Every structure is written in structure tokens, then in C-alpha cells.
């Protein structure tokens, strides 16, 4: 059956996130972008929504709701509609938590999941991206070499979200027999965490570079333990998440442009009454819609346990391209005002370009 009907729970989640996004994220976005930091008070406020703990089973301290990537995609779109950066900061704990929840060994679940079910914001992060041009996440340069009964990790990771305060990192590395992810504590010997990186967009989201110089990990630190984990699957969850975030960003741009174009008068009439602007807005709407449906399709495949590699690739690629195109046109609709930091459009323009080259910074 083909159906676009969210469940009642999904509608409720969407609606409550929508008001949180508009009232809190949107109003704080500019200030955070300028400061280059996320206030603790915001993280605490977002934590109360139980964004990560909701889908962790009660046996690990969570709320025990059904694990549902599609619900998470809906939530992420709404949050990112308010502000993509703060949405990523608020949901960053899920990067680590969902990986453990979906593919961790029983010991790993027991050891780490309760961390995300406490009263205070707790974050652990995912380290996939590396600073090489056109980085391919399926082919990282970071190596996991066998050492005794464990491994030694060596390499460089960048764009690791919330790395300034993450308690642990899940580091993706290439071993002799394929890809794996390893749990590395923040104080692990051989691990160097950089000062926050300075980025084009998502400025409030602190990202760091990790230098791993023979960081020793045991077999038990490997995601999934002896069973190992499917890293493609992990990446698919992050790709769909980023697609959802970019869809939210696209919708924000459009919803900002519409009232602006109706108010801004040129040659005796609102610019919205000119086809060159009106048709552009129509195209922005079309592409926002398509980004959302591609995201939903991939997310629903995740829900069903089907292989979503192709769908996730389409969702992320499409949403990346279109959100950039939409933000770019948003700047154009506002003209000079689009270039001024008084309006959020220039920020969305920077955020869209940044999001488009990342994948492992959100998880559904």
C-alpha cells in the first residue's frame, strides 16, 4: 500500500515540534550563530522533550516507544524548520545512542544507553568524516590495525558534532576485513581533540577534529562486539536524517520568502505578483515537497528493515542539491536584504552549503 498518512502519534510529535521549533529554535538561531555556540539552557530545554530517550527501551532507562526512523525524520524536519544548527545540537546524542541501540552488543547497550536516559543533556558523538576532498565515507583513511586481542586506531576525523562535550566517540575505521566502528572514550590515550572548528555554516554547532594516534581499543569496544556492525546501515540512518534536516531548511526559506515577496514593492506592485518571483516560489515549493517524499520513502524502508541504500542516497543527494538551490534563490528573492545578516536567509544559505557536504551529523 502506498500511503502518506502519518500516524496519530506522528502528527502529535510533528505538531509539538513545530511549535517548539518556531518559538524556541527560530528565535534563538541568529544569536547562537553569531556567538558560535549553543547555550546550555537550550540543550537542557530540548532534553526535556526526550528526543533521544523516547525510543530507547525501558529496560535501559528509556521511554520505550517504538524505534521509528520515519517518526524521527518527521521530527527532524520540524526542528530544522526552526533552525538546522540547533536541531543538530539537540539531536546529536542520537548519533551515538541509536547506533548502539540498533547494532550494539548487549553489553554495549547496557553500558551506554542509560547515559542518554538521565535528567541532563548527555552527548556522545559519531566520527565518520575525514578532511580529504570528496571524502568517501565507505572508504576512510582511518585504519583499525589488529593489536593483540584488540585494535589500534590511527587517522584523522573532522566535523565531529558536539565533540567539545561528547563523553565518547564512535569512530569509523577501515580494518583488514572491512569497515567497523569503535567506541573511544574522550580521555583515551592517543586521542587528541581539537579546539572547535571554524565552519562556513552551522556555526553554533561545535564540531571538532579528532587525531587518533594508535588509540587502543578492545574487541568489546567494537560496535556489535564480535558480531560486528553494518556500517552502511549506520550511514543510511545518517543520510536520511540529513535529508530530513535539509527539507526543514528548505521549507523555512520558502516560508520566509513568501511574506517578504508579498510586502516588498517594486514598480508599483509586490514582487510576488511578478511571475519571475512567483514561479520561483512555486519551484521552491515543488522541490521541498519532493525532498520530503524521498526522505520519507528511505525512512520507511529503514522502518521496515529493507535495504535503503539507494533510497537514502537519493534522499540525501536530492535534498542537498535542492536545499542549496532553494536557499540560493531565497537570497535572490530578498535581494540586498538576503545578503544582510539582519535576515536569516544568508545564514540558511551558508547552512545549506555546509549540510550538503556532510552526512554523519544526524541520525534517525
Amino acid at each position, binding site marked *: 500500500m502506498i500511503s502518506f498518512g502519518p500516524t496519530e502519534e506522528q502528527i502529535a510529535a510533528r505538531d509539538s515540534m513545530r511549535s517548539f521549533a518556531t518559538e524556541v529554535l527560530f528565535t534563538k538561531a541568529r544569536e547562537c550563530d553569531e556567538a558560535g555556540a549553543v547555550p546550555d539552557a537550550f540543550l537542557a530545554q530540548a532534553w526535556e522533550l526526550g528526543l533521544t530517550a523516547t525510543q530507547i527501551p525501558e529496560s535501559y532507562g528509556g521511554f520505550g516507544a517504538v524505534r521509528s526512523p520515519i517518526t524521527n525524520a518527521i521530527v527532524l524536519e520540524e526542528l530544522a524548520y526552526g533552525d538546522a544548527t540547533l536541531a543538530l545540537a539537540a539531536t546529536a546524542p542520537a548519533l551515538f545512542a541509536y547506533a548502539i541501540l540498533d547494532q550494539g552488543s548487549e553489553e554495549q547497550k547496557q553500558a551506554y544507553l542509560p547515559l542518554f536516559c538521565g535528567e541532563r543533556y548527555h552527548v556522545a558523538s559519531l566520527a565518520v568524516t575525514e578532511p580529504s576532498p570528496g571524502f568517501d565515507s565507505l572508504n576512510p583513511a582511518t585504519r583499525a590495525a589488529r593489536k593483540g586481542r584488540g585494535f589500534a586506531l590511527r587517522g584523522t576525523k573532522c566535523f565531529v558534532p558536539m565533540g567539545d562535550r561528547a563523553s565518547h566517540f564512535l569512530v569509523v575505521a577501515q580494518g583488514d576485513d572491512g569497515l567497523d566502528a569503535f567506541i573511544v572514550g574522550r580521555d583515551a590515550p592517543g586521542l587528541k581533540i581539537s579546539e572547535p572548528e571554524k565552519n562556513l555554516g552551522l556555526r553554533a554547532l561545535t564540531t571538532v577534529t579528532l587525531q587518533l594516534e594508535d588509540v587502543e581499543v578492545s574487541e568489546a569496544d567494537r560496535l556489535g562486539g564480535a558480531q560486528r556492525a553494518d556500517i552502511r546501515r549506520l*550511514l543510511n540512518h545518517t543520510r536520511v536524517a540529513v535529508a530530513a534536516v535539509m527539507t526543514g531548511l528548505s521549507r523555512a526559506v520558502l516560508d520566509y520568502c513568501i511574506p517578504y515577496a508579498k510586502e516588498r514593492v517594486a514598480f508599483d506592485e509586490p514582487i510576488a505578483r511578478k511571475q519571475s518571483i*512567483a514561479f520561483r516560489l512555486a519551484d521552491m515549493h515543488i522541490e521541498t515537497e*519532493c525532498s520530503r517524499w524521498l526522505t520519507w520513502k528511505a525512512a520507511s524502508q529503514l522502518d521496515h528493515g529493507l535495504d535503503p541504500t539507494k533510497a537514502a542516497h537519493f534522499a540525501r543527494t536530492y535534498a542537498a542539491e535542492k536545499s542549496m538551490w532553494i536557499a540560493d534563490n531565497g537570497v535572490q528573492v530578498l535581494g540586498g536584504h538576503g545578503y544582510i545578516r539582519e535576515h536569516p536567509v544568508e545564514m540558511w544559505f551558508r547552512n545549506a552549503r555546509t549540510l550538503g557536504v556532510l552526512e554523519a551529523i544526524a541520525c534517525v
Partner: protein
Amino acid sequence: MIEFELSANDRMILDAARKEGVIARKYARYYDEHEHEFPPQELEEAKELPNPLTVAGERTAEDSGTAVLTTLMQNAMTWGDYSVRVRRPRESLGNSALEATGTPEQKQKWGHLILAMAITEPGCGSDPSMVQTTAVRDGDQWLLNGEKIFVTAGCRCDGVVVWATTDKAAGRAGIKSFLIEKGTPGFTITHKEKKLGIRADDTAAMVLEDCRIPRENLLGGEVTAPKGSSGGFRGVMKTFNMTRPNVSARGLGIAEAALDFTRDALKQAGVEIEYGRALHLQSAAAEKFSRLEMLWEAATLSVWRAAWLADQEQENNTEASVCKAKAGMAVREITQGCIEILGPIGASRQHLVEKWFRDCRITDIYEGTGEIQRLIIARALLGYGRKELK
């Protein structure tokens, strides 16, 4: 529940439709090159093939809704060929108008006939409120005069729903649609149009010269439109809310055929496509092809969305335009891109890709051009009427 997997019943129906498509495709080139002939109402092979409409059991809650399923079937049919069908359904656009706006008596009297719809005129296309064909009341009759072009199924239909103005000064409010039976004196089909693509399709031009029809042939009866409103016009425009997803699905069926052909050709040439790999690790052809596939997916989902809303009996005016605009552009890009990837094979008439490229070009034109769809979408987004945004 959000869901994109077809049910077993859905699949059974689509498989049967695909089987028909494979057969129909065998005749595709012949009728493309013999434009003056009409493909038969039913092919020889029809007898041996199960009818997709009856192949599955009762529809259940697991199955896709009727509107969604219809788009899927349109897609499967045109994947075979746009114009050649194993079985040609005995209905056309005019039937949809009758279904949407006809009175019970009219449905009874006209429902079993194939009804074409005549809107476009030599001087009026995208703006149907400019219709010049006139309808004048004369006692118990209407007297119609004018010229219509691009009438789909105009040659083989039994009757036509004709748009005409009863009052030019009233603009859109003056436009009404009328049921005219073939053979009515003063009503002539002049010729079959010669086209870029969908050549085997029946696209007719017709003339109305002092054509007299009974008063009760006013579609929807005389009460539908209160004086001064554009109710009748709106009623007929409503027809498009389902036909737009359907014609979008048709275009995407053609585009899918081109994608399938190109995928096979790439495979034979040893080009591998790895989804989710970094761009610089893909060949240019693989990268281009996966983009075209992505575009197809995006457009198809927008079609399902519009159809799904119709199944929920929700307003889908904007969404119907979204899918039409998206599909219209997508099929152009996809078929043009496939030819680019295929090179000389794509441009040769030995294969069907060049035909698909011509056939699907109609998608962005008929049932409202892409520009009209954007106009509709923009008005909805901006809360504008036709005075604010022309």
C-alpha cells in the same frame, strides 16, 4: 501509516499491466511510423492475457487506494507504449468530466459512451477563459459555433464535452460545457493532427457550425452555477485534479522505459553504478544515470502524493499541479539525458528511445503546461487569486 511498499494485490495487478505493456511495445514502432492508422481497440494477444483490472481479488485495507493504483497502472501501460494498448479502456477525459459534474440523468444517458473533451482552440490554449466558441440559447436548444483543436480521442469517441461561452462579457463565469453526440448535424471532425510524438494517438480537430443540441445537454444541468459565479468553470477544472496525476504517471512510464533501456545498455558496457559512493568514484555516465533515476523517483512520489490525497477525499488541487509540473520537467530531462548517455543508439530509430523522447514531451504541455501549473501553485502559496497573479 506512511508506507511505500506495494501489497501483493497491487503487485499482481501491476505485473499484469506490465505484461500487457511488453506486448503493446511490439507494435509501438509500427504505429509511430503509420500515423494515419489507428491501433486496434484490442490486440490479438488480449485473449491470452489476464485483464489487469480483474486479476486480483477484492481490494483490502492493505492495498493502495483506487487513485494511487490508477496512476500505477497508467505508468505500467505507457511503459509499454503510450498509444498502443492491449485493451483500450472505453473512456476518455470527457468521461471524467461527466463523472465529476454530470447530473444523474446525464450520467445515465452518456456514461456508457466514450467522451472526448474539447477545450483548446486555435486562439486559446492555457487560458481556457478565453474560449471563443459560443453557445446561444434558442428555445429548447443550444446553438453552438466555433472551432476546437487538440481533442484527444476525438476521432474514435462517441461524443464530446465541448467548452463554450454563453456570455463573452461574463468571462469565466460565462463558460459552460456541453455534451455533443457524434453525428449531430453541424458537428464535424476535420482531421487527425500530425504530431512530434504520441503519433498513434488520436488527436483531432473539429468544427461546430450552427450545431443544435437539446437544452438538457448542458453538463451539470442549469442549476450548477449561480448567476455571476464561476461555479461551472470550477467544476470542470476539478476534473484536472485526478487527470493531472494520471498524465504525469503516463509521462513517467515512458521515462521509466528509457531508464530501463539505458540501465541495460550501461550494464552491457560494463558501467557499474554504486549508490551512496562519493561522486569522484563514479564514472560520469553512472553518476548522470543515477541522477536521472533520482529525478524519476522524486516525480513519481509527487504523483503518488497527489493521488493519495484524492483517495483520502482531500483537496489536492495544488498537489496535482506540483506533480504535473515536476513530472513535466523530469521526463524531459530524463529522456534527453538517456539519449545523451546512449549516444548514437539513443538517436537511432532502430530503438525506441528517440520515440520515448518525442512521446513524453507532451507531458509538460497538455492538461495545463508547466507554466500553468506553477501559476496555480504560486497562487496557492501566496493566497492570490487570478487578479493578483496573472
